[in-house]
C-alpha cells in the first residue's frame, strides 16, 4: 500500500497518521479536514478555552514535525467513490487512495426548535467556542444552557465561574442521567445547585424567545427563561452523510468489525466519534471521547497495514465541573447496579462500581483520580474473564 487518505483532521485523524508512521508506513498520507484551523483539542473548548485561561495556541493538537502528511484543510469530503477508490471533495477534486481512514467525527445535534440567531450557540468547534467566549466578553451575563449532559454541564460550570447567571435546562429529571445513572447524576445536580446554577429539569424546550437575537428559551410548561445567551448541548450526530451510497455500512456511524475495518468496503477503516465498533466486552458501540479516538486510530492504522488488531481498550472519559473531577472507566448500561466502594455519595470524593450480575462493567470516580489506575485494572480483568480470547 502506497497511499492513504485520512478524512477528518481532528484527534482520530491525526492519531491515525501518527500511528501509520509509528507502525512503519512510508507511503503518502493526505489528511482532509473541513475546518480551516490546524488540528486542535476539543476538550478545553468547554473549559479552559471558554474560561479564557488557555489561549488559541494552547489548544493546538501536538504533533511531531516529522509526520510527513499533506494537509488539506478547509476542504470538505462530499462523497466516496468506492469503485474507483476516490474521495470526492466538495469542490469536485478527486483524491485517489489505496487505504482509507474515515475519521469525520460528529457534529452538534441541532434540536428541531433551534434557530440560527445572534446569542444562540451550539458548542462543537473552535469557532463555536470563540463565538460564545466573545459573547461573554461583549457583556452577556445571563445564560440558558439547554442540555445537562457532558457539554452543557461543563459550559454551565465554566460560565458560572466567570460570574454569569446560569440556568441549566434538561428534559431529564437530573443532569448526566443517561451517562451516569440516577444516584451519581444526583451528585452532579448537587454540584450545580451548590454553585448557584438554577436547574430547570424534567421539562422540554419549545423554542427560543426573541426575534433578531435570542432572548431566552420557552419551556413546554409555559415558563420562559430570560437570557442574553443560549447554549445548546443536545448530543452529537456522526458525520456519515458523505458516505451515503458508497456501499459502506452505516448504522449510527460507520459500522466496523472489532479491528476498526469498515463493513462493505476493503482496505478502509474508521476511528473516533464516527466509528461504531464491535467491542469484545461492550458489544457494538460508538464512543465520543478523547482516549478512544487515540486507541481506535491506532488499531485502525494497524488493521489498514494488515495487522487486524481488535480494539479492546476500555473506554475512559472525564469531565471537570466546578472544582470537581468526574471520571468514568468502562461503559455502564442503564440496568447495571451501582455500588459505592469507597467513600459515600455525600462525601467530597468517592468511587462507585457499575455491576451486571455482580461483574464490574464500569467505575465512576468523583475527585478520586488516584484510584483510576487500580479500578481500571479491575474492569480490564472483568473484561478479560468475560471474553478470554480478545480482552486487553
Amino acid at each position, binding site marked *: 500500500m502506497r497511499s492513504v487518505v485520512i478524512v477528518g483532521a481532528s484527534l482520530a485523524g491525526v492519531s491515525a497518521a501518527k500511528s501509520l508512521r509509528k507502525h512503519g508506513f512510508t507511503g503518502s498520507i493526505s489528511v482532509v479536514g473541513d475546518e480551516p484551523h490546524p488540528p486542535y*483539542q476539543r*476538550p478545553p473548548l468547554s473549559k479552559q478555552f471558554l474560561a479564557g485561561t488557555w489561549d488559541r495556541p494552547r489548544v493546538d493538537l*501536538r*504533533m*511531531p514535525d516529522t509526520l510527513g502528511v499533506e494537509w488539506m484543510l478547509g476542504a470538505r469530503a462530499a462523497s466516496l467513490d468506492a469503485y474507483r477508490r476516490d474521495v470526492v471533495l466538495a469542490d469536485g477534486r478527486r483524491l485517489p487512495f489505496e487505504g482509507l481512514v474515515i475519521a469525520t467525527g460528529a457534529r452538534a445535534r441541532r434540536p428541531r426548535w433551534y434557530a440560527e440567531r445572534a446569542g444562540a450557540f451550539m458548542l462543537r468547534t473552535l469557532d463555536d467556542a470563540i463565538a460564545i467566549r466573545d459573547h461573554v466578553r461583549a457583556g452577556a451575563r445571563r445564560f440558558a444552557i439547554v442540555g445537562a449532559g457532558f457539554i452543557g454541564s461543563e459550559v454551565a460550570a465554566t460560565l458560572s465561574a466567570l460570574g454569569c447567571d446560569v440556568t441549566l435546562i434538561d428534559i431529564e429529571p437530573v443532569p448526566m442521567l443517561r451517562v451516569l445513572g440516577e444516584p451519581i447524576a444526583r451528585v452532579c445536580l448537587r454540584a450545580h445547585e451548590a454553585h448557584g446554577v438554577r436547574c430547570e429539569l424534567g421539562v422540554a424546550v419549545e423554542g427560543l424567545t426573541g426575534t433578531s437575537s435570542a432572548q431566552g428559551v420557552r419551556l413546554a410548561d409555559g415558563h420562559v427563561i430570560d437570557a442574553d445567551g443560549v447554549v445548546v448541548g443536545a448530543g452529537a450526530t456522526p458525520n456519515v452523510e458523505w458516505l451515503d451510497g458508497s456501499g459502506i455500512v452505516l448504522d449510527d456511524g460507520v459500522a466496523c468489525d472489532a479491528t476498526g475495518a469498515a463493513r462493505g468496503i476493503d482496505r478502509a477503516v474508521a476511528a473516533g466519534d464516527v466509528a461504531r465498533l464491535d467491542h469484545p466486552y461492550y458489544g457494538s458501540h460508538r464512543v465520543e471521547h478523547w482516549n478512544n479516538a487515540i486507541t481506535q486510530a491506532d488499531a485502525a492504522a494497524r488493521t489498514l497495514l494488515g495487522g487486524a488488531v481488535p480494539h479492546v481498550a476500555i473506554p475512559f472519559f472525564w469531565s471537570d465541573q466546578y472544582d470537581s473531577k468526574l*471520571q468514568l472507566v468502562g461503559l455502564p448500561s442503564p440496568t447495571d447496579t451501582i455500588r459505592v466502594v469507597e467513600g459515600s455519595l455525600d462525601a467530597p470524593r468517592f468511587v462507585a462500581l457499575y455491576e451486571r450480575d455482580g461483574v464490574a462493567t464500569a467505575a465512576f470516580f468523583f475527585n478520586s*483520580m*488516584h484510584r*483510576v*489506575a487500580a479500578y481500571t485494572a479491575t474492569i480490564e480483568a472483568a473484561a478479560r474473564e468475560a471474553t478470554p480470547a480478545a480482552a486487553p
Partner: protein
Amino acid sequence: MKIVVDFDACMSNAQCMRAAPSVFEVRDDGFLYILQEEPPESLRAAVEEAARLCPTQAITIEDGGAK
C-alpha cells in the same frame, strides 16, 4: 530519555499512571508525581503510551523520543 510534564496543563486524569505506573503516580492529594524523571530505556514504550494517552498533552519525552 527525560520526562517533562507541563503541570499547568496536567489535569490529573491518571491515564499516564495506567500506562507507566513506575514513572507516574497520581496521589490522593490529586496531584501527579513523577517517580523517575529519567526512566530507563526499557520503559520507553510505556512512557510513550503515557504521553500519547494524556488527555491534556502534558507529557513530553526529551532526547529523541516520540512526541
